């Protein structure tokens, strides 16, 4: 964000969000981080957000880092890795999991 403006377009914001998530997952190592990001997008992003990031990957591939692009591709294929470390909490059980409090 520059000093001149705080307004991001939705597409800019989605690109920013995807990379922000990726930065926070990076310590997992490339392979796990890609899987975890794909899983995160699948589970928390609304269909129109998913469609927009996929469109960006297709039409403006330079805007996505290799790991984010790989995660978006993986999400688009509908094959998020189940039970990756970062997303085990999303398994369904009686006592529950959520992203909010």
């Amino acid at each position, binding site marked *: *964000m*520059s*000093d*001149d*403006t*705080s*307004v*991001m377009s*939705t597409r800019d*914001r989605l690109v920013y*969000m995807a990379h*922000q*998530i990726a*930065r*926070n997952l*990076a*310590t*997992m190592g490339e392979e796990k981080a890609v899987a975890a990001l794909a899983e*995160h997008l699948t*589970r*928390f*992003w*609304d*269909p*129109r*957000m998913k469609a927009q990031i996929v469109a960006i990957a297709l039409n403006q591939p330079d805007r996505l880092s290799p790991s984010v692009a790989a995660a978006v591709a993986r999400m688009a294929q509908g094959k998020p890795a189940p039970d990756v*470390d*970062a997303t*085990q*909490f*999303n398994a*369904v*059980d*009686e*006592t*529950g*999991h*959520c*992203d*909010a*409090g």
Partner: protein
Amino acid sequence: MSFSRETDHGTPAAIATGKSVTLTIDGQSVTLPEGTSIMRAASLSGGSIPKLCATDSVESFGSCRLCLVEVEGRNGYPASCTTPIADGMVVRTQTERLKKLRRGVMELYISDHPLDCLTCGANGDCELQDQAGAVGLRDVRYGYDGATNMGQAKDQSNPYFDFDPSKCIVCSRCVRACDEVQGTFALTIEGMGFDSKVSASQGEGFLGSECVSCGACVQACPTASLIEKKVVEVGTPDRAVVTTCAYCGVGCTFRAEMRGEELVRMVPWKDGKANRGHSCVKGRFAWGYAQHQDRILNPMIRASVDQPWREVSWDEAIAHTASEFRRIQAKYGTRSIGGITSSRCTNEETFLVQKLIRQGFGNNNVDTCARVCHSPTGYGLSQTFGTSAGTQDFDSVMQADVILVIGANPTDGHPVFASRMKRRLRQGAKLIVMDPRRTDLVKSPHVEAEHHLPLRPGTNVAMLTAMAHVIVTEKLYDEAFIRERCDWDEFADWAEFVSQPARSPEAIEPLTGVKADEVRAAARLYATGGNGAIYYGLGVTEHSQGSSTVMAIANLAMATGNVGREGVGVNPLRGQNNVQGACDMGSFPHEFSGYRHVSDDATRQLFEAAWGVALDAEPGLRIPNMLDAATDGTFKGLFVQGEDILQSDPNTHHVAAGLAAMECVVVQDLFLNETANYAHVFLPGSTFLEKDGTFTNAERRIQRVRKVMAPLNGHADWEIVQLVANAMGLGWTYDHPAQIMDEIAALTPTFAGVHYDRLEAEGSLQWPANDAAPDGTPTMHIDGFVRGKGKFVVTDYVPTDEKTGPRFPLLLTTGRILSHYNVGAQTRRTANTAWHPEDRLEMHPSDAENRGLNDGDWVTLRSRAGETTLRALVTERVAPGVVYTTFHHPETQANVITTDYSDWATNCPEYKVTAVQVMASNGPSDWQQGYAEQARNSRRIAPLEAAE
């Protein structure tokens, strides 16, 4: 209808030793816990010993000499309040000698007390009056002509209660309540002997003193010396209903004491397990908003937001709402509308709103205010422990030896719990405060933090990782706990990460600004000081690394074995009264009640079977994403119950643009709030006094909300949602919230055992409450973590992208103050404005001096997102380089300053880090003046004749 006070046993319950003793009181054999006073023993066995200076909320004092008793084999007449029971003791509480002694004592009290009982506000509710009767006082031998303390001026400065020194008997109950219950130490007895009198601070009026107006003194006063103005105005109550406060996540329970349909006072309920008979200024006194003239009581609609509102019938408003939502969906698609549930509404109402959206709207576009407060708590604790809630009950703090408070200001935000915490600190527990501000907990009467870590905003993860570095490298971790309860390999990976020199306190000192030695000492204390309990607030969550910080906290607790028993744990202090419940009820766009993902086929089929429709398996939009989609033109309609996103959510310009882009915004609220400036339909809401339901507090404690008066708007909020649902063809048939809770229980495993009859019987239940835990779960993770093995997560410090620089050299952090609540919609409509009439900008004297600013000056506060003006408060509570303000007043609109940066995992806004500049100003900015004008126009209501 009858009214009775709660029984006062005179002295508190004895500290449990497990031993009991048997004695005889007035010929009756009694067995009670060791340490019990004779006074309490007599009360518990059905008797009553006269008393004045004793009340069971404070320790015995032994000053009034009215409670004298005879004990066989002992000389004299010991005070029953200060004398503990003993095995074989024989006590007589009613003898001729005792009567004479007590009558003599009462004569002395009454000789210096106004005899205006018939016109006194406490007539019929006065312990002095009662005790005079109890001892058979008929005359005062000394007459009334001597020197007295009568005729002294009243202190009426406090907006809620009066202090009349003429009626004071100097029993010190108020002073002790302030000390022991509230922990503020604002009151004292000034002077000696006949001149003794109660004094607030250094002889100031109550309003100007350090008194926080919690009301504990008023409740403790046995006369009318300290009395609620409302009691004086209305009279004493004639009935009482126990209900739950609608402020903050502590969840205090109160007796709403009524006179007919009029609320006279709120008295904290002694049996309330969250508050144990205590309250704060908001819960006890700040309920006048319920009858405030600003309340909107009739539904209103308008075609566009530049038009005045038009009052309509409920039928027309509901039909219009349903019609508009269906029209929008027909034109823009099923996912073009959504809704926001309210953390100020009941569990049942919240459940119905998300049901309306999932069943009626056919999508998952539902979110709630937890998005902007504790969403990272859910994410972080789910990752590490497996459940999205705090681990303890509030009582647990009394077993803590070291208390680590991170990014929380409980004396302002959660004052009743803070009083309990301070009591434990006075007993000797150690305190570590990690906060950029020098909050009251850092140093206040009889409480002082061992370590204050005033870290630079945005560096929480670096700081917590440095503490972990000390714990691991100095081998202070609990290996046995980790090996038994956690994944050892994950611990090893985490330990290797935190042990790296780059994570050491010395290495991160330039980032955090905190001396490495202080960090090391704090880490050692937490790891080795006994039971370590962590309490945290929005200073943890409202960051771009909020979720990482929560996980870093959980890592520390697991590494030191501080999980799974009383006195320890990880405890998020929740903001709004029912934010826990709103989350539990499925208010998030990706999960059903009980935190089950919408993509899970089995769960979805359970709800589909119950609700008779196919449900969307894709997650919906979060609030900020709804606003983005609105500006993109794909999201056109919003139902907002009891939230004011225009004032509370970040980057006001963005929120306004999103709302303005929608074709139908429906606001259901008590008042025409800021969001309603952009609304097309207004559905008047009901207060917590006007409906039945339940709230769930920060302890996961589910408590009843009980209707004490009829809703002024004609409908409880759950009824209004049902009207909308049925207008959309859903065919709901709820007659009472109990039926909604039955549905919740049937569909939510953690609530399976929660039904109104159980709540009536138990008073409250802490979830999980089901077959596995029939009586609920006060402490989580006792035998193992919910997720199985506790998970250590490596939390790398990723600095925020919000940077200071030459144009914006200061860091703004926002928060709240004791007297106000959230956006202030309720508290601004009470006399609480006496303490905080406007938002002020706290800044360090050096920053003020550098800008030529003085305390009270108007200043412009500018960020990359926007600017506003407010007055400066020059104080050393904030560190140099940091400024702070509250967001309670729409005239300030603090969120015009905050940015769109948010937590990486949950989009919780980064309220706590905004780069700003501060400069002198002459008054409100152009934007503020324009906003005020727009708000005035938007709130116009067309006269009825013009509307017809």
